[in-house]
């Protein structure tokens, strides 16, 4: 028999003799601790009880704690137990003597402190970001003076990873967005009989606005997070420290190639995705509105002045630099623990996308009079 059991024997003088038997261990008690606690409490409340543990086959600290709590954290007056079981109970009694650490009462101005702490944290982030930009400028100056330090291999590796490998997914998303946009616009335009304006809507929307932003969101999620995680893990494994001790500048070798690679890859990806998205829109327009490919091609340059394409590509460069800088900024902030790594990766992606949208609105205002057909 191994189950924990309680046997109660009433004595003539009105007292009770409680004898416990079986295994009083965590595994045994786990599924029926509530019933036992209730029964033990009831028994302990009785004034004249003697406890007999001699039949207990095993007692661990979980079982002992159960009893200890039933006894209201004091030893009962009459207790019959084996020495090893008594020691467990004594250890619990001794642990009770240690006071739990005093809880510092919350200041009534806690909320002010929280706001202040966040403000200081935000300010520090801005300063760090400015330092990172400054380091990039110093890298450029250094490379102009000593061109042999140019990190060619890292640059081409990054260009391949964040550019070439992103082509399939950006093509797929671009094509689908082109189809969706064309389909929705076609439904509206047909009502007004303005079918041919589909070329204007698609051309302006995709080339100037949607293409760059779409690619930026994809690249921020894809390459931005990868960059942050890579730098973060290199920090955790002390690889960045090892680089520094060898006299290799981390900004030149790790950050600079990432920033320049994205600055080159992004406009190319924008061009690629825009083209595919326009093809998607063109196919959809042909099916929906019966607009021929030849007409689409003919109409596109008239509807969309060249300036729009240039604005789109410049946006691509700016977004690319922004995403890489934000990703590296958060990557270098990673502290050596898993929580910090995940928090910084999330922050990198969210901040990069927010910053891109912010930058996009700046572009929209600054270029509001450029490239709009009269």
């Amino acid at each position: 028999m191994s189950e924990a059991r309680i046997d109660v024997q009433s004595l003539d003088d009105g007292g009770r003799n409680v004898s416990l038997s079986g295994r009083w261990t965590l595994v045994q008690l786990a599924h029926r601790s509530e019933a036992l606690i209730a029964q033990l409490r009831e028994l302990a409340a009785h004034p004249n009880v003697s406890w007999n543990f001699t039949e207990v086959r095993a007692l661990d600290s979980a079982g002992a704690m159960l009893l200890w709590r039933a006894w209201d954290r004091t030893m009962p007056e009459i207790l019959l137990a084996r020495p090893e079981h008594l020691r467990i109970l004594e250890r619990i009694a001794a642990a009770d003597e240690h006071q739990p650490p005093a809880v510092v009462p919350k200041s009534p101005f806690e909320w002010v402190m929280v706001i202040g702490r966040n403000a200081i944290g935000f300010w520090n982030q801005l300063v760090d970001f400015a330092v990172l930009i400054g380091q990039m400028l110093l890298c450029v100056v250094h490379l102009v003076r000593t061109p042999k330090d140019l990190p060619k291999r890292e640059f081409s590796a990054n260009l391949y990873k964040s550019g070439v490998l992103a082509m399939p997914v950006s093509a797929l998303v671009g094509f689908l967005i082109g189809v969706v946009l064309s389909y929705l616009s076609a439904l509206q335009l047909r009502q007004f009989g303005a079918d041919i304006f589909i070329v204007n809507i698609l051309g302006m929307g995709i080339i100037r606005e949607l293409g760059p932003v779409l690619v930026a969101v994809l690249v921020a999620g894809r390459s931005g997070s990868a960059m942050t995680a890579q730098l973060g893990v290199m920090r955790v494994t002390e690889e960045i420290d090892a680089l520094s001790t060898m006299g290799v500048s981390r900004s030149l070798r790790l950050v600079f190639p990432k920033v320049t690679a994205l600055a080159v890859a992004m406009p190319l990806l924008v061009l690629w995705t825009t083209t595919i998205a326009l093809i998607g829109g063109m196919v959809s327009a042909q099916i929906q509105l019966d607009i021929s490919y030849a007409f689409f091609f003919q109409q596109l340059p008239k509807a969309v002045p060249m300036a729009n394409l240039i604005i789109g590509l410049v946006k691509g460069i700016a977004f690319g630099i922004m995403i890489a800088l934000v990703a590296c900024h958060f990557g270098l902030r990673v502290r050596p623990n898993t929580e910090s790594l995940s928090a910084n990766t999330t922050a990198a992606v969210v901040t990069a996308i927010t910053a891109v949208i912010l930058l996009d609105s700046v572009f929209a205002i600054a270029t509001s009079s450029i490239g709009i057909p009269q």
Partner: protein
Amino acid sequence: MTTPAISVRDLHTRFGEVWIHKGVSLDIAPGEMVSLVGGSGSGKTTLLRQMIGLLTPTKGEILIFGQPLFCGSVEKERALRQRFGVLFQQGALFSAFNVYDNIAFPLRELQAFDEDVIHDLVLLKLAMVELLPRHGQLMPSELSGGMIKRVALARALALEPELLLLDEPTAGLDPDRSDSFVRLVRTLGEELGLTVVLVTHDLDTLAALSTKVAVLAEQRILAYDTVEEIIRVDHPFIRNFFLSERSARALQNVQFRR
């Protein structure tokens, strides 16, 4: 007097509200093998990281071969950095490179040798740390703890440094591996005439490797002397650290070795 390999002058370090070092001064002569010991949290690793320029002290200065590490010129700093090698606690091998490329990395950075010379040098370094040429193709994730330390040592020695800094060289190794690693460092140190600075709290390592011991406690260097002299210093920390039963066993070997 010759220029000390490392000279720490009146170094103060503060982390937030806590002072880690208050007036640490230490001169390490060339050719010494110095163990830096101290209780946990006494700032041993911090001091080591300050020596190699990963942390900047709050106050005071550190000179390596008589020169400050950050002197404003990239070339000077690089030249100075080539004169010392560092072995990190976890090895800090570049996980994207295999063993061969890890050891070749500092040599390639130098841009002075072609690939043939680098190949020969890397194989030589591998042999020096008692590894076989075929180990060169392994990735760091495929290595055991002892091998990681050996590869990291080979990489630290790649640029023929005069000074070698080791952070907990035997932490996480079983006694057998740790013994053979210590023996390796000692032979290499003696053969190459290296100045060695190591942070450790393993007494066996300390007894086997160091010609001198620097005790870091109470935010300063409590004593800097040979092991035999240090044991005579009457201070609670030193008594606890060196004169416990466990320590006595480890230190027996010191006399034996000489």
